[in-house]
């Protein structure tokens, strides 16, 4: 008995148990439920347990699905490229140009200030700013930059991507900054001594050492953008669709099985994307 209690295996299992239970109940079970329901049938009033491939058949044969998935990827890729560019630059500045650690911490915290309000509020506040009679257009008009208000500022793909970048850049900044702070400064000096230009230092020393941070940030941004529906709805004025909106429309019309099928396909797509990214960098080794 005493031997069993002292066994390392048992302690390990017991330590892991709470997390396993929580994840099983709140993650694995609901996902399984979604998979099961995706094979059910729906009438106008009820959902009927069945094994029916109809939901998937409709999903894979409708040209809308293709358009909408393409749109989702497009938003994700553009947002990813922009947040990566901005995130890397901001982190670079914080890590290598700010000498005092206090200032560094203060500025990093400043990046998180927008998170003190909900992301919906942060998003909606763009609407009066970008509108036809909004602050941006009024400013441009009075500066004489334009003759007529720019309509594409709001309710357009531009607005959607602007909001995505605004909402998600901080998820890029923090992990990259974290990686950069760990870089041994003597490596940079050594590179300089060996005759590397600043650009070469960035590409040959800093970027390879930042890979895990870049990868973690990318996973955050891609999964958040691909799973979003509310940003697309508000910033495009309901005129563009991504997969999330397809799912939310189905739920609104009580078509749970069809919503589940779309969710399963989206989940698999996102998992594939993340798996692909993890193959590029072994995050665990690098950390």
């Amino acid at each position: 008995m005493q031997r069993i209690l002292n066994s390392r295996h048992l302690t390990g299992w017991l330590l892991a148990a709470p997390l396993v239970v929580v994840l099983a109940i709140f993650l694995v079970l609901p996902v399984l439920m979604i998979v099961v329901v995706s094979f059910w049938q729906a009438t106008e009033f009820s959902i009927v347990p069945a094994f029916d491939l109809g939901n998937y058949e409709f999903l894979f044969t409708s040209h809308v699905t293709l358009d909408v998935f393409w749109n989702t990827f497009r938003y994700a890729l553009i947002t990813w490229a922009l947040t990566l560019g901005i995130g890397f630059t901001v982190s670079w500045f914080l890590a290598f140009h700010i000498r005092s650690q206090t200032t560094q911490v203060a500025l990093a915290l400043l990046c998180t200030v927008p998170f003190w309000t909900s992301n919906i509020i942060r998003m909606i506040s763009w609407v009066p700013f970008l509108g036809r009679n909004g602050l941006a257009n009024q400013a441009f008009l009075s500066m004489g930059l334009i003759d007529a208000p720019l309509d594409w500022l709001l309710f357009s793909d531009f607005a959607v991507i602007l909001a995505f970048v605004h909402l998600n850049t901080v998820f890029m900044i923090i992990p990259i900054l974290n990686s950069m702070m760990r870089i041994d400064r003597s490596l940079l000096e050594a590179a300089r001594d060996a005759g590397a230009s600043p650009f070469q230092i960035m590409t040959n020393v800093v970027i390879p050492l930042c890979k895990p941070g870049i990868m973690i940030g990318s996973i955050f941004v891609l999964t958040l953008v691909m799973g979003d529906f509310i940003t697309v709805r508000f910033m495009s004025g309901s005129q563009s669709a991504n997969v999330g909106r397809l799912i939310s429309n189905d739920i609104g019309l009580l078509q749970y099985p069809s919503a589940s099928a779309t969710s399963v396909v989206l989940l698999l797509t996102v998992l594939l994307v993340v798996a692909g990214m993890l193959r590029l960098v072994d995050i665990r080794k690098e950390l």
Partner: protein
Amino acid sequence: MKKNHYSRRSLLKGGAAAVAASAFPAPMIWAQDIKDVVLRQAGTGVSAYNEVAAKVKEDLGFTLEMTALDSDAVTQKVATQPDSYDIADIEYWICKKVWPTGNLQAMDTSKIANYDKIVGIFIDGKLAPDSVIAQGTAPHTVGFTDAVDGKAFAASPTGFMTLIPTIYNADTLGIRPDLIGRPIESWAELLNPEFKGKASILDISSIGIMDAAMVCEAMGEIKYGDKGNMTTDEIDKTMAIFTEAKKAGQFRSFWKSFDESVNLMASGEVVIQSMWSPAIAAVRSKGIACTYQPLKEGYRSWGGGLGLSAGLSGLALDAAYEYINWYLSGWVGGFLMRQGYYSAVPETSKAFMSEDEWGFWYEGKAAAGDILSPQGTVMEKAGATRDGGAFVDRMGKVACWNSVMDENQYMVRKWNEFIAA
């Protein structure tokens, strides 16, 4: 969960007591018991005002609990969970969908005191003897059945009503007259290239498709057999015209919630769009000109009423009849008419409105003084007249009623494609 402490069994007992009481008249028992009745009303929220529940408690003594849901959720609740509500506050097209499930019971019109005064729209479909009945799910076509537990709709009044009508209105396009600067007379203007990037339509498929049909018909592009029950071919053609307009950048945005429609209009992002009556009032209350523009093709109209759950019996059923009779007796009618809706028994509401209010809302006369909302805010300044004019002018020009189509699922799919296009 049921909040009342009356279980089904005790209600049945109460019902038995009520029957006994009516056989051996002893009304006092009944009057004391009814105070403990709780009626649960599930509805679409148009008429779910706390003021109404408070007034029920005051006038009738029992408790009314209201739940407001969107129309899809109400439809599902009424159709699948008959034990979860006592009174269904639904639109007539929802009635068409859910009545066949047998979860509602018909009402005996001989127990409805003001039945004879209900406007013709809900009885034989005619406001005046020479009225033409509009397309779509006209309320009178689903308003009657042949028995308390009847499953089919009756073609003419039978003495058993499926819903008791309570609230209705005529919807049209809202415009910003100050930004348009010329008269607007037709639904076709929604797709006029002049308003490119400044138009909007609501993204609620069942209503949006009707507005779209009004526009296509006004443009002369499509001739519908019945806009309220389109064929798949008509749906395809309608959506093709709107998809083309969307791709050409006609629409600034679509809206799904009341607030969105108000903001789009008030900010000037949109100058012409589908709109609901209270949203117009909300824009105007900001001091911005906004007209609920009457159009020559007529209105898209909707109507709602109260239905009784099939599970209601005994004391609770008596209370429900009491409630419905009270609903038609005028106070609620006056309350709703002051929001811009119409009451099913206008003449009883008159007693609960000032002469000026009655003249403004019902008769289409110029307001003598400021017109206030039931909450006391100024809705219209003295001298204003109601857009579209008098009751008979507005309700007399209904082109189509909100409806549910046989091809509903096909339509929803096509609508989603339009949004994603």
